[in-house]
């Protein structure tokens, strides 16, 4: 099964997954995680320019909405060939470790706007025991082990790679 979906994950896909499991009568519990693109705030691109602007306009510099840039969308890319292998290994690891019956993972590729869904992990078992832990471990291991990257698109037209975001915060704060 292909874990990657072009663009955002529709709420209809999530509903469809729940419906698909209604015929599996041995299942008594579902847990799921839904990742949504958040409108994070980042420091302005050029703090000196902003300071100059505020001095000239005698505006209060604590107006965060002007000082900060905001994420409008995230573009996801992946080393798909490796990611697919690693997802199979991750599923095998989780299925062997917890008493669960099903584990489905969906992740977006390409651009996803804030408020839209980019990650969906769906765990089903006979009982709730194991489902919560399996879900949490799958999400954590996915983030650590699967070669996927985020490029942040900001409201001033600039872009920042997720791995450079912390550097920007340290440099400018």
């Amino acid at each position, binding site marked *: 099964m292909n874990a990657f979906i072009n663009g955002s994950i529709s709420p209809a896909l999530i509903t469809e997954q729940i419906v698909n499991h209604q015929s599996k009568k041995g299942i008594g519990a579902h847990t799921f995680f839904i*990742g949504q693109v958040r409108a994070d705030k980042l420091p302005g691109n050029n703090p000196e320019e902003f300071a100059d602007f505020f001095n000239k306009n005698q505006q209060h510099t604590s107006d965060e909405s002007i000082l900060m840039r905001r994420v409008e969308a995230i573009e*996801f*890319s*992946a*080393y798909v*060939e*490796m990611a697919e*292998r690693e997802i199979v290994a991750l599923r095998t690891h989780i299925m062997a470790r917890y008493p669960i019956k099903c584990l489905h993972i969906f*992740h977006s590729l390409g651009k996803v706007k804030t408020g839209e869904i980019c*990650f969906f992990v769906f765990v089903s078992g006979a009982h709730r025991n194991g489902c919560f832990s399996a879900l949490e471990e799958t*999400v954590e291991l*996915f*983030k*650590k*082990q*699967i*070669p*996927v*990257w*985020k*490029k942040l698109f900001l409201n001033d037209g600039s872009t920042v*790679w*997720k*791995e*450079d975001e912390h550097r920007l915060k340290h440099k400018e704060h």
Partner: protein
Amino acid sequence: MQKIKIRFMGGLAEVTGKSYTSVKVCSNQTTCNDLVEYLHQKYSGLSEKKFAIAVNYELNNPDKILKSGDEVVLLPPFSGG
């Protein structure tokens, strides 16, 4: 002559200006580490970047001897999910 395929993933493609390249190496003793040293010389921007190396999908095997057709992929820190 060994032909090695190279891919730059995520932000590294912007640092090097390309997603794919390839190199020909004469020695049949060239390791993954040797190739990374060469790439650092060719693309100076790489020195400021953190990345892992996958050779044919296997991560971090710096002493692996490269052979013709191998795919070496430079992977920035993962940020999926």
